[in-house]
């Protein structure tokens, strides 16, 4: 019983970070119809900025804020200076489908090289904002730590802010409408090019938080967020790629699922488990577990 509870809590903590990455991918997918592989690079760059600030100021949260801002600026920049131009030039035929995705892979490589040249490839650590030692109850120490709690709380706050932004503000309404049918949104007076850039900025900021949180209990290298991208992507697919709520649910399911495998089956099967889930979902329910069986725009 105790082990089951531990597994659930650790799974939620892990899954909540996946949720942020998954959300970042879904936000870009909804607005641009691109699977953004560069998201790992964007998050990594933002985390390096956050790491610089956090290690100089010794304040993790200041680093987190800078990571959000850096992520948002970079995300907006990628859309404005890169995607917009790309869509202008490759706007029809197979090129229009393939070019943006390949371009995000190229961008990932580019960001990685720039980060490598600037910060080098060695392992960096950010001092965690809370203890990584598990809570102790009498004689028993569980693996779930104050840091895990803090991660869950931080993610919950970010999700609440996003939910309010999307559900309760004009901007959120414009973002939802532009994602669903840009042409109709434009006719209603919405500048969809601008809302798209804002979508990329929000995704970038959210990715920055994910990077900082992962790094707080891990380490940072130009490659350290690749796995986060993979699991974020799997979570997004489980949630159906379209839905933000789906992205979060998918990530929590994945986080708990992988922790069950880790705790009850074996470490070596975690990766296989993740990919098996991805393939199963794609084969059985390609629209994701949240799909209501209707087709949105093509």
């Amino acid at each position, binding site marked *: 019983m105790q082990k089951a509870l531990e597994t659930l809590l650790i799974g939620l903590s892990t899954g909540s970070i996946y949720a942020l990455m998954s959300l970042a991918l879904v936000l870009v997918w909804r607005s641009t119809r691109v699977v953004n592989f560069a998201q790992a690079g964007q998050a990594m760059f933002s985390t390096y900025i956050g790491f610089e600030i956090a290690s100089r100021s010794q304040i993790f949260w200041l680093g987190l804020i800078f990571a959000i801002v850096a992520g948002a600026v970079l995300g907006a920049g990628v859309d404005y200076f890169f995607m917009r131009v790309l869509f202008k030039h490759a706007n029809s035929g197979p090129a229009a489908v393939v070019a943006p995705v390949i371009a995000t892979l190229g961008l990932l490589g580019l960001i990685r090289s720039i980060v490598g040249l600037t910060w080098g490839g060695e392992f960096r650590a950010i001092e965690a904002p809370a203890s990584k030692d598990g809570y102790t109850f009498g004689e028993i120490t569980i693996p779930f730590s104050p840091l895990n709690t803090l991660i869950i709380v931080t993610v919950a706050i970010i999700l609440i802010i996003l939910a*309010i*932004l999307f559900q*309760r503000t004009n*901007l959120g*309404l414009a973002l939802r409408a532009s994602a669903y049918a840009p042409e*109709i949104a*434009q*006719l209603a007076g*919405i*500048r969809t090019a601008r809302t798209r850039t804002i979508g990329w900025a929000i995704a970038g900021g959210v990715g920055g938080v994910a990077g900082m949180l992962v790094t707080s209990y891990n380490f940072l290298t130009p490659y350290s967020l690749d796995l986060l991208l993979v699991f974020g992507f799997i979570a997004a697919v489980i949630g159906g790629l379209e839905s933000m709520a789906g992205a979060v649910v998918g990530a929590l399911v994945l986080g708990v699922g992988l922790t069950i495998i880790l705790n009850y089956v074996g470490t070596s099967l975690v990766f296989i488990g993740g990919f098996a889930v991805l393939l199963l979902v794609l084969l059985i329910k390609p629209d994701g577990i949240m799909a209501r069986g209707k087709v949105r725009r093509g």
Partner: protein
Amino acid sequence: MTSEQVLSIRNLSVNFGGLKALSNVDINLHKGEVLGLIGPNGAGKTTVFNALSGLVTPASGSLELYGRNVKWPKPYQLVDRGISRTLQGVGLFPDLTVSENVMLGASKFAKTGFIQSALGFSGKDEEALKSRSQSTLERLYVGGVAERKAETLSYPDTKRVSIARALVSEPQILLLDEPAGGLGAQDIEWLNGLIRHLRSSTSIIIVEHHMDVVMSVCDRIYVLNFGEIIASGDPETVKNDKNVIEAYLGTHSKARK
């Protein structure tokens, strides 16, 4: 009727690849006027709307709005220029509530910028837009469904909501694309009344297949066939025009989709 022109299209031509969708079309709309745009399927009626709303790029032609020469607007500039358009097949966002659908059309009244809105400083705006949407919905007798998702509405109600979204920006020019399509006799009667009532505040161009509607509400009618205007004038003149009768009755074999 005043003769003040609010919209004037000169020599509009649109090509789709090698196909001439519109050639040298001239259309004038006066203040408070209700203009009908009719013609067989594929005549180019909706293409006129698409050119006006930036969804297709004209090969040639000029546009005058409120007496001034302007560039053809981009889709998102339409509302700012005082033009609203409804779409054939409604064009609502099924996942959004009715109220949200209409609020989208009112976004030009929002005062806060994107950044402030993102930071949550736009509460007043949202309230103002919401009450604006609500009163527009009530004008169209669909105030009671404001909080329902658009996908749950009956077809006639979705038509009313899409007109509400067009009206909420208080347009000077309203483009209605087949507003009567798919409606029953009672709803069509209501629509006729609405259009007659709206002309006091806005000038209207209607693309419509329902001849009853066109003949009863329009002051003037332009008839398009194969991308050219073959006749224009008041309903009576147009009804008896030889070219028009031929286009509608005699060219079934030539008519293209």
